């Protein structure tokens, strides 16, 4: 959550009139994509490239067509290895959730432990992805793909979303996809 101070500052800067993309680039937001490797000394040069501007903007679905608890699969940010993702309207509000209920989220569905494919193990009543068929990790889709129980060394990469009318766009990704060294290098 943003602190109150950050929220105030954010509202002064244009509040809800901002697009998701301008929000990501605004100085108040430290949302994933904008900081990345800058926390690692010696890699500042690469950090510049590692921003959300790197990601494609891709139409992935329509809000009105989403059924609660029924995921829709898509590939992002490309169609290469391990790019399987799901878009889903959860039964509850979620971090990074889109829409009036803040309940529409999207995640990469490859387990960040050893790469197990989890697209078929979504538990709608719990808003949980898992157990992973390989080693039983579970992930909380209401809390940015946080590990609930298991072995993964990264949260499930969350697809950053933007709504334009009824259209849902993927605009970026928070966290590294399993098996890749760079999300945009398939």
């Amino acid at each position, binding site marked *: 959550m943003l602190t109150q101070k950050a929220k105030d500052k954010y509202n002064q800067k244009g509040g809800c009139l901002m*697009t998701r993309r301008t929000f990501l680039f605004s100085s108040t937001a*430290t949302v994933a994509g904008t900081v990345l490797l800058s926390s690692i000394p010696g890699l500042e040069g690469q950090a510049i490239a590692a921003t959300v501007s790197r990601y494609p903007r891709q139409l992935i679905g329509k809000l009105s067509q989403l059924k609660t608890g029924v995921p829709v699969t898509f590939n992002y940010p490309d169609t290469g290895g391990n790019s399987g993702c799901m878009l889903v309207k959860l039964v509850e509000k979620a971090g990074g959730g889109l829409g009036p209920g803040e309940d529409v989220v999207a995640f990469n569905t490859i387990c*960040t432990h050893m790469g197990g494919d989890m697209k078929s193990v979504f538990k709608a009543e*719990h808003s949980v992805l898992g157990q992973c068929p390989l080693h039983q990790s579970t992930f909380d889709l209401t809390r940015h793909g946080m590990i609930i129980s298991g072995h993964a060394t990264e949260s499930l990469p969350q697809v950053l979303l933007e709504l334009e009318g009824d259209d849902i766009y993927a605009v970026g990704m928070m966290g590294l996809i399993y098996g890749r060294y760079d999300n945009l290098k398939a």
Partner: protein
Amino acid sequence: MSTKASDSKPSFTPQDQVPLPPPDADVITTCCDYCIVACGYKVYRWPADGPNGGPKRKENALGLNFPLRPGQGGWVGPNQFTQANWNGKLHNIAVVPDHKARAVNVGGGHSIRGGCIAQKVYNPNKSTKDRLQQPMVRINGKLTPVSWDFALDIAAEVGKHAIRKHGESSWAMKYFSYQYFENTYALTKLAFKSINSVAVSHHDHPSFVNSVPGWVDIGYDIFGASYEDFAKADCLLIAGTDPFESKTVVWNTWILKGISGNKTKVIMINPRKTAGAAYVEQHGGLHLDVNPGSDTVVHMAIARVIIEFGWHDSDFIRDHVANQWETDSGFGQGTRNTPWQWRTTWGKFQVKGFEGSEKHWKEWLLSQEESKPEVAAKIAGIHVDKIYQAAEMMGKPKANGQRTKTSILIEKGHYWSNNYLNTASIGNLGAILGIGGRPGQVMTRLGGHQRGGQNGGKYPRWKSPYKVPGRRRHALDLDRWLQDGHVRFAYVVGTTWIQAMAGSHALEESIKRYTTDNPHQVTSSDKQAIIDTLKKRVDSGGMAIVNQDIYLRDPIGAKYADVVLPAATWGEEDFARANGERRVRLYGKFYDAPGDALPDWKIVSMLAKKMGYMGYDWKDSNEVFTESCRFSRGGRKDYNAIKVMAKKQGVKAHEYLRSKGTTGLQAPLLMFDGRLVQTKRLHDYNRKDIPDTGPEGLTVTNKRLLAFKTQTGKLNLVKTPWNLWSDFYEYMQPRGDELWVTNGRINEIWQSGFDDQERREYIRQRWPENFIEMHPEDASARGIESGDRVKVWSDRVPVVTSNNLGVKSGDMWFSGLMKDGHIMQDHGEFDAVVIVTPAIKQGVAFTEFLTMKQAGNNITPRVPDPVSQNYRFKIASGKIEKIGESPYKHSFSQMSLKRRDIV
């Protein structure tokens, strides 16, 4: 117009890129520093200014094409990457599970703990920046940086003074039993061989004792199995632990292999339905959700059903279980100073053999009310059918008449509740089912820490003043020894003494009384004045503390230590250690230790020399290792052959072990005809590769290699009388609106969280605080919801006070101690964030076992098992009361409150 998603973000911002090691990166082999499984890892090291590697197989040191395929090991995720100095120059470091591993984590499996171990590395720009880097002395209450000589002169002079004036056992050592052979060897050489103090205990016990005393008496070694046995069994009984949660790769690589390939049925005994328990239930297994502390009667009832159906292994019992003659003759050598003798002379445990009279085990068992399935089920709070189902899974022969291959795997939830009886009663189950020494039929602890203990001297048990009725003597209870004012100098090494011990609150009060509450406090920076002040404190009945660790631990270091010494650790020195299948490997040094930090063995050598002791002139860790080798002979981890083979090849012992990579060598190591022979499993009575000419040269063929660990080499069945435990159990039962409050490990946190919960952003996001799981019925009855903050407390935490001499039978049982006024009832409490989940049994709450700031041990009973001196950490009860809402109740950025048993 576009609208954004909700502005919530995770507390930790993950990265979406990571550098790959170039083909010419240095590669160092090591193993994970954490749980007993000790997965093999490779460290890739290359200059921070690059160049980095590329995604093609030939462009990176991993030899892998990126992106990796699903299931393929060797991924470098952001948490596998860090930076550190090597020879004073900044380097990129990737610590990656060894995808070429041929043992343990075959193919590169890993846990969340080990998978993030790169973040353990000292990095001044990350949250490991507060590593201890200089020795410090407390002056005017403030820890002040000093030189090594200054700090160690004080430690040596005050220590020597205590020994001279108050006896060697006023010099106490509380230390890790596990943190590498080189360090534990040096520490115990000082404490046992040079000083000869009896006031020594490990990080997890009040006394220098065995964790699994029932097995000691029956004849099972505690780490007799090989991990492949878990995949070969038809049935696994796993008691008091879920390897999914705490021995990850044992689960991922070996148990899952058995479940999928061999249709292994897994039975889990645990009050809590863990993720593993939920999974096995879906795969033909069984979860016995017993009440805490009730395991013994469940084992007895399962044994009864097995016997009544005739499913016991008669051939094995005939050949490998001691009969009347063997039981008597094996011990007919007068009263000897062994645990077996102390216990059997009570007449409470010894039997004459399997069956034949009322003095035999079977008849004894059938005469016990608690062994009736209905009675046991009632005590355990489970459905009686589960007892029959478990007996059938474990014992019923297959349709083709073959015996079911069953293995038994236990850990702390099992043996740290009703220590003696649980370990003895489950050992009996093993004996009648033919468990031990055969593929897929093994009895083992799953383990906690790795096996890095090597004693450099003998524990002087005879010096302990703790006398119990008959000709029996307990190992010294260091917590009680301290509480009673007998410790004048304490050397605390690598353990969070206080929170790690039962009844922590009362223990802290004692430590405070003898240190900061003592009138003799250091107020000068003059070394001699400091020494004189601390000597006065020692002589006035107080205590000086020297605390050696990698971080400043609160309160033992931060509040009470007079001298704090910075230790170097994993990755900062070459070390050797064994894992839970006795596999010895070298953990290579790959970066510079921070500041002036030194490895523990080196600090010990400097301190010992200042105290005037001989034999501490080691130049490097290899020399300590080489010296320690001969002391391992005949033991479970016998690694003496490493020294011998190295000498033959003209290399250092460490280098010989390093050449074995992440596979290492499985001990005990033997030598025949100049060949090195490894040991897959212990008690292997079918083993053919040991010459029948017996020991050769330097090789010691300990009995446990080919037989069980008793005088006769056969297993001793023992009685397990419930009344040994029932008085204490009755006291600990929840009263009024109390609940059982038990505790244990969870996957994401290692030990006290010093590396992860406290310093790893990814894990701090998951677990910013301690939690307590409550059943929905228990929570709603108290108006508690998930995310609420609660106080967990008790006003009747039992703490045993001074009592060294037991005279009459029963004096040392709980009811005897209570009657004679030796039990103090203390107040203890901690707070935690509630997770409401049906995964925990109604009437029971479950919390993390060692969170520093919210220590569950504040309410655990400090009354050790009267037979074995083990604490009963898992048996506590207390009241739970809402004190407010935590920030995690409504925020999405930290701490998931979801249940952990979703399948």
